[in-house]
């Protein structure tokens, strides 16, 4: 975008750049700051509350209704300004020490921008981290950041930045109000003007923010020399930001602004006003009448963005005569009922379209035990975990041999207090260490004796008993074509066992106790012939342990039946642990479909069976079907074809 900011803004920018150089020019830059700054920097930096009240006391400037609206808007502004300063529960404040000693301290902005970019870039490889408000206060840089991202940034404590070591701490202290340098008078005036524009354009009765024909706005056009389109675009961004900053919560904002008009703004691609979707995602009515949108692709950016949009006006845009226009609008705006004044969906149809967008997790079924006829899996697991807790050397000697492979992979969960140090140096998480690195090779343990040594170095654990309900989820099945160690057959059958569970851990070096969730996968194969004969007919060929982010499940699995050695393992029958609480509709539909497939009952009877005493527990429903099937009427079953 061309750096053609209005004079007032430019001065504001120049002044700002003393503390934080920005990337573009004019208002646009301001927008860059504004957008990343969810705390509403503009509002907080400015001592505008006083000025606003002053304006209110000054009374009517003789513009009748408009100025009353202005006064009302302004009062609201002053209250909001105070509220905005309060802590947002989703944000945390961090203090970063070390900037002053870094080489970047010599930059015009004392290195602030460079440090923020460094933190944003280095904090996480997998997600984008955006630092919000930041304040330079003496030797500390204060930053505000999403709670979820805080751990990633805190991890950088101790890292070197431009020749200086950073020290980052989380703090409960309140962030200093502003930088040492104050916001300029011109900037305040610009803001006041914009607030007055906003107040004049907000209709509280209709909850309508009227941003139509911004290019022709008298006040806005005095603020700079734009052609109408650029003005509209830039003014739009600032106005939408300021407007949304007036409300404490998203809910309050959604309540107050339900309709927006962007009519007659020469918009030829909604990309120009995309941020509306971020600022006001809950809009119910949107008016784009009289713009220059010529194809649906020019609305592409807003696909599925406004989930509650019931009414959309595009009259006067060339796009309305496109062939696929209505179809695409219906698809992109699931709640849409009225398009250009015509009803295109009933409220019921809109509700259904909206519902189809809800996340639909795959239904959770109980443990699936298909370990052949001898209960090998249950017997092995019941021996394995207690022995892992009490006598790892013996465990390795009994089940592991010279060809067994073991490795562990850790996904540290910085949100929890348990240390990961004991695991990280052995972690063969190839996603993290790299597929071609020496660590990938070194962290693989390919011999029972070596594995037993490694296990000595791991913290002591205590796994829940296998028969404790709801603590375990086990899937296993046999598979063909392992090597036969006896050499008698070409191949041998193997058994894959995948276990999800939790263990308590006590780390003696740190004296920290806690619970971890893990997944452990074994491949069992026949034992090698030996003298004396092997302790068990099978041995562990492969053992992969994953320590992952803390998740409540599978503990949350309710209605569980314990995994016991006496549990008959029947092929293709989920035999053991129960399903999760009450599933949502999508999951229910899957359960109904599966039960119907399994039993031959109609969908209606399958639902009845699941709804009743089974309470959506698939295993119980199946069991009660078996008990009741002779009593069921013929219409309960799908007619044979």
């Amino acid at each position: 975008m061309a750096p053609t900011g209005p004079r007032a803004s430019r001065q504001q920018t120049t002044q700002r750049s003393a503390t934080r150089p920005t990337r573009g020019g004019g208002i646009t830059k301001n927008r860059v700051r504004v957008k990343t700054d969810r705390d509403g920097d503009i509002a907080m930096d400015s001592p505008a509350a006083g000025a606003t009240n002053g304006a209110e006391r000054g009374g009517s400037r003789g513009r009748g209704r408009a100025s009353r609206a202005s006064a009302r808007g302004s009062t609201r502004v002053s209250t909001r300004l105070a509220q905005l300063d309060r802590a947002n529960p989703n944000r945390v404040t961090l203090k970063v020490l070390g900037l002053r000693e870094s080489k970047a301290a010599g930059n015009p902005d004392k290195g602030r921008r460079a440090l923020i970019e460094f933190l944003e870039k280095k904090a996480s490889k997998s997600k984008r981290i955006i630092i919000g408000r930041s304040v330079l206060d003496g030797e500390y840089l204060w930053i505000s950041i999403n709670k979820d991202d805080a751990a990633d940034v805190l991890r950088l404590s101790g890292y070197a930045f431009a020749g200086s070591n950073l020290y980052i701490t989380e703090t409960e202290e309140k962030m200093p109000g502003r930088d040492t340098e104050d916001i300029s008078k011109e900037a305040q005036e610009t803001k006041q003007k914009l607030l007055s524009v906003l107040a004049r354009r907000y209709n509280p009765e209709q909850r309508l923010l009227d941003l139509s024909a911004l290019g022709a706005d008298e006040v806005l056009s005095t603020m700079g020399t734009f052609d109408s389109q650029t003005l509209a675009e830039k003014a739009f961004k600032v106005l939408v930001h300021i407007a949304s900053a007036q409300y404490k919560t998203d809910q309050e904002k959604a309540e107050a602004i339900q309709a927006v008009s962007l009519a007659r703004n020469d918009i030829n691609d909604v990309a120009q006003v995309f941020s509306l979707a971020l600022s006001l995602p809950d809009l119910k009515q949107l008016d784009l009448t009289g713009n220059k949108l010529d194809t649906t692709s020019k609305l592409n950016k807003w696909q599925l963005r406004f989930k509650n949009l019931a009414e959309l006006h595009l009259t006067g845009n060339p796009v309305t005569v496109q062939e696929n226009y209505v179809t695409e609008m219906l698809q992109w705006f699931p709640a849409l009922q009225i398009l250009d004044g015509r009803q295109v969906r009933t409220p019921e149809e809109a509700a259904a379209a909206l519902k189809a967008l809800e996340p639909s997790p795959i239904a959770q079924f109980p443990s699936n035990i298909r370990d052949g006829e001898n209960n090998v899996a249950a017997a092995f697991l019941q021996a394995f975990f207690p022995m892992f807790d009490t006598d790892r050397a013996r465990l390795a000697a009994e089940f592991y041999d010279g060809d067994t492979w073991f490795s562990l992979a850790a996904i540290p969960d910085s949100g929890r207090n348990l240390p990961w140090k004991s695991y990280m140096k052995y972690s063969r998480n190839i996603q993290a260490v790299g597929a071609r690195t020496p660590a990938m090779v070194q962290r693989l343990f390919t011999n029972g004796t070596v594995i037993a040594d490694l296990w000595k170095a791991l913290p002591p654990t205590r796994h829940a008993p296998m028969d404790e309900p709801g603590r375990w989820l086990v899937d296993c099945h046999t598979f063909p074509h392992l090597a036969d160690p006896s050499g008698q057959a070409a191949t041998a059958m193997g058994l894959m066992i995948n276990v999800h569970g939790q263990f308590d851990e006590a780390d003696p070096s740190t004296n920290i106790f806690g619970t971890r969730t893990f997944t452990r996968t074994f491949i069992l194969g026949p034992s090698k012939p030996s003298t004396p004969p092997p302790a068990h007919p099978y041995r562990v060929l492969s053992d992969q342990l994953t320590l992952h982010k803390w998740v409540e499940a599978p503990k949350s699995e309710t209605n569980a039946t314990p995994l016991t050695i006496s549990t008959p393992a029947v092929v293709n029958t989920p035999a053991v642990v129960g399903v999760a609480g009450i599933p949502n509709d999508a999951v229910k539909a899957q359960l109904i479909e599966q039960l119907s497939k399994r039993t031959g009952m109609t969908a209606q009877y399958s639902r009845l069976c699941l709804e009743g005493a089974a309470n959506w527990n698939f295993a119980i429903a199946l069991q009660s079907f078996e008990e009741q099937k002779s009593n069921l009427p013929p219409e309960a079953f799908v007619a044979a074809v």
Partner: protein
Amino acid sequence: MSETSIRAASEAAKNFIEPFYAAINDGRPIAPFYINTSALYTQAGHPPADLTINGLVMATPEDFEALLARQRPIPAQGGGPNSRPKTARYEVEAWDVHVINADYRFGAPSALLVPDPTKPDHGASLRQMLMVTVSGTLHLGDDDKLKQHFNDVFILVPNWDVLVKYGAKGHKRVLVQSQTYRAY
């Protein structure tokens, strides 16, 4: 076990995992990753791939595809992959691989059973049966409305059709013989 074969396993797993989850995330078919698509295996009498999804056995990879499709209620169409908010995204955070049979021979063309000095490890590391575990986060709904932990266990076998043309690019070097999936 030689380092060459450990490295070969790691390479093969990586070359499977990345395209597999990319296909799921982009809503492309995943059935071609499974052993069911190999005429060679099918004719040699290999059973179809064993899929257990959240404890439920699937008859075919297409059944699993159908479940995945329900996680993405609106089919991606038009525009690039970033043109619309994603409704289901599998983010891999950890994986590991072990060789569970270093000399897998089922259905192998005889040419691949003869040591070949022109290939790494004389071609032996092409005949690996692998166990791969993958964990990560499943992001469901816009704005991560629902996050689940997911874990996948795969047993992979060599795709002989591709291996006989050693060096052929853009083909699946391994096929899924078994998949055990849980997301919670």
